[in-house]
């Protein structure tokens, strides 16, 4: 049993993947909570697609690919913010319009004969191909994210939960949006080329969405999220090693299973809570209503 647990970790491929996931877990547990609370999952899922025109453009002009990807992300994020200011459209529609157009443009550009092959493959990075360069980058980025979130914590708290009153307190929700957009774009740039979009999305959203089901307060929520990210990464890598499943997909599945488990725990808790409430309050209005509805 011990050997079963230790053997994978002695493989450099597994150890490196685990290190990268552990660092990304720190980002996802903290930044992810704000993304989930602010309802930015669509951005998190789609923003990477806005890299495509930048990547193709950089390849055609002979510039470094990272620069192209960064420009693509910056253009995508600022266009989303711009379109999001149109009052009759929700921020979700803004994401849809901007990402669809940019991705379409990227596909068209990518058909130019001079485009090198396999550029789109950058969006499907491979967890097992992670090297020490990527791990150092992830470590640096995790440190930046933790520092910024720590400094801005009070401000984010004020705007994050109550957008209407935030203005009265002298804080603007636009600031929160900007910080989140920038940090999200940075995470996409750092992680997507190494891990692939699918795994990055699952890492950013999964642990935070699960933790939100288990606890209401932001501090514990972040800790639970980081813990979930770490446990799911380990479980996914074990599955990939012992059952020979595709690595990134196995970790993604583990994160989704964690979410399902959190959902189950939450449902059971709600069931128990309503049960005890009914018993203790007896004839109080809520219990009455519940019973009359059942009857």
């Amino acid at each position: 049993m011990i050997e079963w647990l230790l053997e994978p970790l002695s493989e450099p491929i597994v150890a490196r993947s685990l290190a990268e996931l552990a660092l990304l877990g720190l980002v996802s547990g903290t930044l992810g909570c704000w993304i989930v609370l602010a309802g930015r999952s669509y951005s998190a899922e789609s923003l990477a697609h806005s890299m495509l025109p930048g990547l193709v453009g950089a390849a055609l002009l002979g510039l470094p690919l990272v620069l192209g990807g960064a420009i693509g992300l910056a253009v995508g994020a600022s266009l989303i913010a711009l379109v999001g200011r149109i009052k009759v459209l929700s921020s979700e529609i803004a994401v849809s319009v901007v990402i669809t157009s940019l991705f379409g443009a990227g596909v068209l550009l990518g058909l130019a004969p001079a485009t090198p092959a396999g550029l789109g493959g950058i969006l499907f990075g491979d967890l097992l191909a992670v090297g020490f360069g990527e791990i150092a980058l992830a470590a640096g980025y995790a440190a930046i994210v933790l520092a910024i979130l720590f400094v801005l914590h009070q401000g984010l708290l004020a705007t994050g939960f109550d957008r209407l009153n935030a203005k009265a307190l002298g804080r603007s929700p636009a600031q929160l949006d900007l910080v989140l957009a920038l940090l999200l774009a940075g995470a996409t740039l750092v992680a997507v080329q190494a891990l692939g979009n699918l795994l990055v999305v699952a890492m950013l959203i999964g642990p935070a969405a699960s933790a939100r089901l288990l606890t209401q307060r932001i501090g514990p929520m972040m800790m639970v999220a980081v813990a979930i990210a770490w446990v799911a990464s380990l479980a996914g890598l074990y599955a990939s090693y012992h059952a020979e499943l595709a690595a990134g997909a196995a970790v993604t599945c583990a994160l989704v299973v964690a979410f399902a488990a959190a959902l189950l725990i939450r449902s059971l808790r709600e069931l128990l809570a309503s049960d005890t409430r009914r018993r203790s309050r007896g004839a109080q209005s809520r219990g009455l209503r519940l019973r009359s509805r059942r009857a």
Partner: protein
Amino acid sequence: MFDPFALPFFQRGIVEILMLASVSGLLGVWIVLRGLAFYAHAVGTAAVPGLVLADGLGFSAIFGAFGAALVMAALIALLLRRRSVGGDSATALVLAGALALGVILASDVFGSQGSVDRLLFGSLLAIGTPELILAAVAALAAAVATAIFGPRWLAAGFTDRSGSSDSLLIALIALAAVAALAAVGALLATAILVVPAATTRLIIKRLPLWQLTTAALAAAEGAIGMTLAYQLNVPPGAAIAVLAGIVFALVAIAVLIHQRRPRLAPLALTLLGLSALAVAGCGSDDGGEASSSKITVAATTTQVGDLVREVGGDAVTVKQILTPNSEAHDYEPRPNDVGAVAASKIVFASGLGLDAWSTKLVKESGSEAEVVDLSSGLPVSYATGEGEVHADEKEGEAHADEKEGEAHADEKEAHGHGETDPHWWHDLTNLEAATTEVETALIAADPAAKDQITANADAYRATIKKVDKQIRACLNKVPANERLIVTDHDAFIYFTERYGVTSKGAAFPSTSTQGQASAGEVAALEKLIREAKVNAIFPESSLNPALAERIASDTGASSDYTLYGDTLGAADSPEGTVLGAEAANAKAMVAGMTGGKERCRIEP
């Protein structure tokens, strides 16, 4: 090029996009009003595991996509009812789970699969009768449901988001997204389902009118996008997405100007007019083609194109469909290819499932071109992944030369065991046989050029023999027990068997971007490389080499050498011909096996 409206596949495309436009008008407004854009995007994308399953088990892709989308819709409808779960997080996670399942199915259950990528951006040629029926059903269902439940959806749009009519809306959007798959693709379904409704929302607030304008705008954008896709030879989804994005931007700017400075109304109107122009005015670039007395033939892959050019020489014009570096297995034919085939007398195909799309091309073009499958008369063939020979090698020469006596002579008669590996040209005796087939076919088509073609074919066969000898001499510089290669794509069995090279493992379990390796497989491969003391591993030129490089640096083997497996090099490079690529493969292998100590010269 000829009139697109006369082509059946283009007519189908226009009919399809007009039906989708009515769906867009009817449902798009609800998507915008109820904040379901992420769901609309996700439900189309989540069809991918359904496509993988359909491909693996061999049932219709459209059923697979529809089934997956329905499961996705049911899960999200359930999760949306729970207040404690953010709808967007739930959507993201259900989508991630579905896609991860697709990757696992593609890499670990079905091994290799192909026809998934093509449905990501849509394709004019992917629209058949089932797709048309599905779009009609989607349009009809959307119309009926809007008539009955429209008022309730409108009321709910401003208050709660639960109730049975909501589940119906969610199911309808799933149906619409699957119907849009063939025309605009999974990743760009929002271009027709969301963007037109968002554009008209900027100007119109009242409901029936909003729906009508949205349908009209979607129809205009769709039809023009389709025409552009045909003329520019691009996937229709991408053309429609860019067009819709431009129109949205112009309308948004016009509205902004109108609100801030009503006095600048003329400018705003100009912009609106411009967006109408962007929709309507699209130049056509018909280039007349000089016709000559030469016969025109089409070739599917880069290798076949090179072979036909060598044999045909000046006597034929060769239209080659694949370009270097494009994947043959999952290529989705584009409109220009139909034109190329329609103008050709013969279509030369590589065969064995590598270019199965060529039959469809011939059918769509309505041409009566003869299809010559070059794999039909191969002297040497191997089953996929096995390494078993079921060959009746005509010439004893192949064996006589193998002095080292590697006993890979387990040549069983393995007919019917699985599929035949399609990379036949890596054995040069096969290339010789194919040369003769091309020669025969070309002479039959153009008897007047017989002398020229025969001379070309004779010269080419002589060169093949010469290069074959040189490659063998080159590889013989390496002792037989050191002739080991590790490559990330198992395409080289014809080469390794012919020249006595042992192939160890493939790091990628599948040949497409959908496939991923597992930690267990890669760890085992690294162990094998260390134990067998392999000097070099060879990432293939058309695959992303990151993982191969990682394995190389872990094991101390070099990954600096590239092999040409599925495709040739760029047209004007030495590797742009079959013989040049095979020579480059031999040189790279020898340099890699010996740590760069042994090099050889091969001159075709």
